[in-house]
């Protein structure tokens, strides 16, 4: 979705710079005098720290909702009551068209939405890391091939493809996860590749090469640990992006109906008369939950990214 890539947008500039690396020369940051850069003197913003804490709290709350839904939900989501009820003391968010308590559905839906996001992000991050590492470490023909492959595959728009697949096959959560994961690794691959390109020139990598360690060993024990702090924010942003895509696809009825994610709830609300009947307690909560969950994940991701930049800058300054 347009905004799912927007989530990754903050890293996009990096991705774009990498993509046009042959066009764009290396630009060292402008240092004012000598080695002492005034950047290391910048005071840490207290308001940003506040943001970070709020987003982490929010994210933990949603995780808790996903792991322990029974402790938050008043009923089981399949239990049926009187349908189309407005919010009341017994049903804080009312009931839907078949009589399920909406609040319980909401709480149990967290698990599905977050799992899909997490799984898809895991797949895409894994693929992206492996490809990026290999491309960056081995360079040459392999680099060209892999990056070419990346370019070629990622022109294909994900949503239409999933639509076609979903129409043919029974809508299943695994298709969703697989396709989302298999088509989103571009930005991770680019970032890993550029970091690998940097790190392969480091002293300890060169000495490991001299000592005759296999490339696989060097990549896993020398280069990879230094990439993790870059991967983590990307992973978070990938989760956010996948969650939004899932929500969108579920809206079209391509999600798994048996597993009620927030997206499916929204879809039911719209297509089964919730909208027309002005039942805001049905369609607002899932949408709000999606937004806030994605927001918290994205903010955590941005926070991690900012921290990573800080560390890499300070590291460069101390030398």
């Amino acid at each position: 979705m347009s905004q799912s890539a927007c989530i990754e947008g903050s890293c996009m500039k990096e991705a774009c710079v990498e993509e046009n690396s042959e066009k764009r020369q290396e630009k060292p940051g402008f240092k004012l005098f000598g080695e002492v850069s005034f950047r290391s003197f910048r005071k840490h913003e207290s308001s940003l720290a506040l943001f970070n804490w709020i987003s982490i709290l929010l994210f933990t709350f949603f995780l808790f909702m996903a792991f322990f839904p029974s402790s938050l939900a008043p009923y089981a989501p399949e239990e049926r009551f009187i349908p189309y009820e407005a919010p009341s003391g017994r049903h804080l968010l009312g009931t839907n068209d078949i009589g399920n308590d909406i609040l319980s559905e909401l709480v149990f839906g967290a698990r599905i939405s977050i799992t899909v996001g997490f799984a898809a992000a895991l797949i895409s991050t894994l693929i992206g890391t492996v490809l990026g590492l290999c491309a960056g470490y081995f360079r040459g023909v392999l680099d060209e091939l892999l990056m070419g492959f990346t370019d070629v595959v990622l022109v294909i728009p994900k949503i239409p493809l999933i639509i076609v697949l979903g129409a043919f096959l029974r809508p299943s959560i695994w298709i969703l996860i697989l396709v989302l994961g298999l088509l989103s690794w571009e930005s991770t691959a680019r970032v890993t590749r550029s970091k690998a390109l940097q790190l392969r020139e480091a002293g300890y990598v060169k000495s490991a090469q001299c000592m005759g360690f296999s490339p696989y060993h060097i990549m896993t024990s020398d280069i990879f640990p230094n990439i993790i702090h870059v991967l983590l924010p990307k992973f978070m942003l990938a989760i956010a992006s996948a969650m939004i895509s899932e929500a969108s696809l579920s809206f079209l009825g391509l999600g798994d109906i048996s597993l009620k994610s927030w997206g499916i709830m929204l879809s039911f609300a719209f297509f089964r008369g919730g909208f027309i009947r002005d039942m805001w307690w049905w369609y607002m909560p899932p949408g709000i939950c999606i937004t806030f969950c994605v927001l918290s994940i994205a903010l955590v991701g941005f926070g991690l990214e900012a921290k990573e930049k800080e560390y890499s800058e300070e590291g460069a300054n101390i030398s």
Partner: protein
Amino acid sequence: MKSHASSTLLEVRDLEVSFQGIETVTVLSGISFSIRESETLALVGETGCGKSVVAHTIMHLLPPESRVKGAVEFKGKNLLGLNEKEMTKIRGKEIAIIFQDPSLALNPVYSIGHQLAEPLRVHQKEKKKAALSRAAIALKCMSFENFSECINYYPSWCSGGMNQRFLIAASTMLNPALLIADEPSKGLDKKCVAELETELKKLKVERKTSLLLISHDLGFVQRLANRIAVMYAGEIIELADSSSVFEKPLHPYTRGLLNSLPEKGFIPIPGFSPPLNSPPLGCRFHPRCPLREKYCIQVHPELKEIDGRAVRCFLYP
């Protein structure tokens, strides 16, 4: 050090610059010098001694966390008291600066002609075509034979030496009275340095531009400068005219610098420049000075004037 005869163009008095952050670092202390019209003053010193900060302070290009004390007077006006809008009228027009990395200082997506014409369009509100043709003429005066093609080139297509000369052309389009050159010869090979020297000499002679030359290349400086100020750890430790500094250096640091030249034997000065957030007590050079006394470790020397020169050392009380 006050000078006489032709009028003073730029005067810097007791300049102190510090950067505020987690800790406050004083980068420059007690900097005083002056430049007359058509004079070339060179600011020499190791990397990290604060030479570029002087240049940026004069031009008001320091970052927001900087604190400046002292006075910088240009043609009688106190530059430090001007606000940003007033300063923009002076920058590029009366004082210009060229940076050490010409390929990075020029905007990669605009043509050379466009960037040369820009000062004309911004300061003198000239029309694009007229400005471009004046830019072409400027390039011709710089002895670029294919100046009409150069107008359409982009910085990434040209070598560092060419870009440096383009940069000089852009900075001097409006005939500024003072040109600050911040390490112009860094990263250039010998041939380019020679071309650069020719350009700067032409500026001095034909347009009577004053030059504040910041460099760590002593040979380059010797050929161009009238007077030399030697900086160390944020202070001026010697200020004299060029020949005096090279023939009879007073400060032990200056002597050490000259000894480290290839012609004199490449003898380096032992030790490292002190970090500016914790300079040594007393004379800042004392840890590396072969002639230090007990006095030097405890008391900080002032800049003393002797025979038209200035030096900051207890050897000359």
